[in-house]
Each structure stands twice: as C-alpha cells, then as structure tokens.
C-alpha cells in the first residue's frame, strides 16, 4: 500500500483546469519530486492535499484512509505537514516558538490545565520544548533559537519552516520549492538535509520547477504541465523524455536557469 495515493484529482478555477486528472503515488521512505514550469498547477496539488482547496473530482488516500476534502487541521493530525512556496512563518514569534506551534497538536493539556499550571501542562511543555530545541539543533538553527523568525536570513527561514513541519510529527512532508531563492551552496546544503530526512524515516514529496535541482536526490519524479501529468518515472527517464524537454523549452524558457544562477 502506498503511503500517499492521489487518484485522478481535478480542480478548476473558473474556466482554468489548474489540476486535470492527476495521479501520484508516494511510497513510504521515498523522496518524490513534482516538477513542472511555473503555473503548471504544482502548488495547487499541495493546496488540495492539505485541505486548502476541495477537489472537483478524484480521491486521495493517506495510509489507506480517504483524506480528500478534509480540513487542514485533520490533514496534519493524519500525518501530513507542509512548507509554503512563499515562506509563511510566524514572523513576530521566536524561532523556538515557531517550532512549538508545530508541536501544538502534540500538547495534550486543555485550557484549564494551562491556567492552573498542572503537572500535565508542565510535563507537556517541558517535553515539547526539549524536543523543539533538539530539532533546532539537528537542522542547524540552535544558535537562532531565541531570535525572531523575521530576523533570519532567507535560507534559515526555509529551514525553520521545515523544522516547524517536522515538529508536527508528520510522516509525510510536503516541500514547496524549498530551494527557491537560494544560492548553489545553500541549495546543495538543503538538499543534503532533505536526504538526511529520508534517513530518519520521513517521506518527502517536494515541488521544484528547476529539474536539475532534484535530479540527484529524487527516487521518482512526476512532471506536471498545464495541470496534466506529462511524464513520470526515474529521474533519468524523465530528463530524457521529449515531452518534458518540450514543456520546459517551450513553456518558461528561463525557468530552469533561475535558481542555479
């Protein structure tokens, strides 16, 4: 059974078929990439997956359970967390607090237990904070723990967003263009970090519009163009697929160059 199985989902915005009969399968422990030119519908697939949009048709299964059209909160509880293409951190909160928001659903105490500072509250807070600091150390943000998210440089903000997603305890992490806007060194380092996540048992589905970025780390790649899947398979197969080359050359000429420059 695949961890995530997207079956034939479609979504239109008015007359625009943003996602058109898309099928994606992600197995446990894989790094799968969803690539395609700008405007192909990649982010829309993530928005559907995480409950921001409801599908017009199709089904989504996570660990065998139907999750299409559930609300975002239920999706996280189910074990899927994401990052955003245009970073959405809680900017006026500290780095540590951003991660603690990630573990919000792992805090078992209720309002009254919080107000009366019961043992349950104290234990839960201590444990989650400890985990949050460890997580920050692992992603290399320990030195920024006390700082505010808004003060972090771009690359670290991306990392913090991933750390926040990891803190939810999700199994499947959705990354929307994690390397966007990074210089080659930063993106190299980030990709290594993503690889290490697989080593720790996470499954990754990531979006990228620059194919070359994901060639080396993806187990499999899906290519989306104008809302339709035009190719899928191993990185080498996809790279040599004439339809993919055509989509990239014909579509957005400079897309493949942008982020490597």
């Amino acid at each position: 059974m695949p961890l995530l199985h997207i079956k034939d989902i479609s979504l239109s915005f008015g007359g625009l078929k943003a996602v058109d009969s898309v099928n994606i399968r992600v197995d446990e422990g894989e790094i799968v990439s969803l690539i395609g030119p700008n405007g192909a519908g990649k982010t829309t697939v993530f928005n559907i997956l995480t409950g921001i949009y409801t599908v017009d048709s199709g089904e989504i299964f996570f660990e065998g359970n139907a999750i299409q059209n559930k609300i975002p909160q239920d999706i996280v509880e189910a074990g899927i967390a994401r990052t955003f293409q245009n970073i959405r951190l809680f900017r006026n909160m500290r780095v540590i607090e951003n991660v603690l928001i990630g573990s919000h659903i792992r805090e078992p105490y209720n309002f009254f237990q919080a107000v009366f500072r019961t043992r349950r509250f104290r234990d839960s807070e201590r444990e989650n904070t400890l985990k949050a600091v460890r997580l920050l150390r692992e992603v290399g943000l320990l030195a920024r723990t006390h700082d505010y998210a808004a003060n972090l440089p771009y690359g670290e903000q991306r990392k913090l967003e991933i750390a926040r997603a990891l803190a939810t305890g999700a199994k499947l992490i959705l990354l929307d263009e994690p390397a966007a806007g990074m210089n080659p060194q930063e993106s190299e380092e980030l990709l290594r970090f993503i690889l290490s996540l697989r080593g720790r048992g996470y499954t990754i589905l990531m979006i990228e519009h620059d194919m070359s970025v994901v060639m080396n780390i993806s187990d499999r790649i899906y290519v989306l163009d104008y809302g339709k899947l035009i190719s899928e398979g191993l990185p080498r197969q996809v790279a040599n697929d004439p339809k993919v080359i055509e989509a990239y050359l014909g579509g957005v000429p400079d897309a493949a160059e942008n982020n490597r420059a």
Partner: protein
Amino acid sequence: MDITGRLERFFSQRRIFFFAVVIALLAALPAFGFSRYIMRICIVISIYSMLTLALNLVAGYTGQLSMGNGGFYAIGAYTATLLMINAGLSFWSSLVVAAAFAGISGFLLGLPTLRLKGSYLTIVTLGFGEIVRMILMNWDTVTNGTLGVRNIPLPSLFGVSLSFTNHGLYYLALVLTALVSVFCALVINSKVGRAFIAIREDEIAAQMMGIKTVRYKVLAFVLSATISGIAGAFYAPMVGYIDPNSFTFDISSQIISMAILGGLGTMRGMYFGAAALIVFPEVSRFLMDYRFVIYGLILVLMMRFRPQGLLGWRTRLPYRFGKVLERQLAAEGSLPPLL
C-alpha cells in the same frame, strides 16, 4: 544593543526587586493620604487596565479587532447591578454570574468569526456594542431604561462595606486587576497564547499546524468578554449609578486608543495606555470637550509614526526555558546560545 534592550535586561535581572517595589507602593498608596479624587483616578485606571488587557487578548494577540468590548463591560455592569438590587445577591456572587454572563455573550459574538474576517468582523463587533446599549435603553422593565439604576450597594467583605473612605474599593480594584493580569499571563504563556499569536501572524499557516483557528478565536472573545464583564461588575458599585449612556461607543474607542497607545500584544502597554489616557484628560481638563479630537489625533499619529505603540517593542530578552529544562539542555550540550 539598543536602549530598550538594555533597559529590559536591567529590569529583567532585577525583576523580583522591582516587582516587590511596585506591589509595595501600590499597596501603601492609601497611606500617603491622597485625596479621594486621586484615589478614584487610580481605581479608574485599574478598571481600564482590565478592559485593555481584555481587549488585548482578542485584538493584540489573536489579531481580531473588537470594537464592541464596551458592550461586554455594560453587560457585566448591568448583570451584577440587577442581581444585587433585584435578587439581593451579594457583590461576590453577582460578580461571578456577571462574568459568566458576559462570557456567554462573548461566545455569541465570537461565533460570527466562523464566517467573518478583518474589517467585516470589526463592524459586527461595533454593531454589537450599540445593540447592547439599545437593549439597555429599551428593555425598561428589567433595566429601568434611560433612567438607569441608582443606589447600587457597595461590595462588602465580612460585614465591612468596601468604600472610598476605608480604601476597600481601591484594594478590591487592585486585587481584581492583579488576578486578571496573572490570568492573562498564564494564558499567553501556554499553547493557547501561542495559538492566538499564530492566528494573528498567519491564519492559514496556523491551520496547517493543526490549530483549530475558529475555536481559538471564539475562546479569545469569551475570555475578553469575561474579563470586561468583571471590570463592569466592579465599576457599577464603585460609581453607585449606571445608565445606558455610561456605556456608549466612547468606552470601546477609549479602550482601543489605550491599547494602541501602549502597544497591542504586550501587557505592559495596557497598563501604560490606560494610565496615560485616564490621567491626560484630568491634567488637561480644559481640553475635555476636545477629548475625541485628541484621541483621534493620537490614533492617527501612532499609526503613522509608531504603529506598534509606545511600549510595543518585541522583547529582546531570551526565551525562558525554566531552570529544570535549562539544566537538562546544558547536560546534553544543546543549550541555545543567547542572542
């Protein structure tokens, strides 16, 4: 490090001392023999501190601007008054019921947040404040209409009536404000407070972290209303007379002005804002008729030059892990370095 950072560190390192000094001064204030007029101003400041702390929960932390908090204040004041006068309940039981009643009204007002965002929500809260006043004016049989209610009895404790003369009212105001402050601090420093702030910062991202945003927004309204209700329940016996015009939109806008002046999203700003805008008209009585103009001007100037409020800076102090956790982190070599 800049001046506010240094000041913060200075005070933070000696916080127990300063805290004790402030408490001692406030407790000893009646002993200085100030006039009843001055003591009354102090009481009004503490009422408005509660009201701004209440507003702060919805507007400051959760980011939902409520212009109807005067309505909760009115509900608290009327509920307590009518229970004391008509049902003969003691001040204390009336206070509890009034707080609960205001909380329920906050729940009802919070429900539109299910559907409304931003300015739409704000307009509904504004309407709510006016509706409350209309009900108070027109429901004569219960509220005595525009005539208001007179001779509201003073609270009494162990048979002693708490008055201006024996400073009982002052101490009661102080205790209530302290309780409300501690309550707010406890709520804010928990997952509840973090959820509030996350909703303010980015509602979509908050949802993606599993925060039940609707539930937390309604909770913020309920807490805000309850605290405002407590302030109202105290206000009524303090002045001894209430009528619907004690609770015009003026009150809601005063609360908002105070909170913005001090700095929404901070507790220190609430006390400061309340004190500043209560004292200011008193020391410049000749401006009284222009108070609204001044408030408007303050709001505009603040928005333009210091939108975060006079005391609204983000603290530079390190995050507090607590001693136990700090030791544990240090032991495993992952104690985060300070800023």
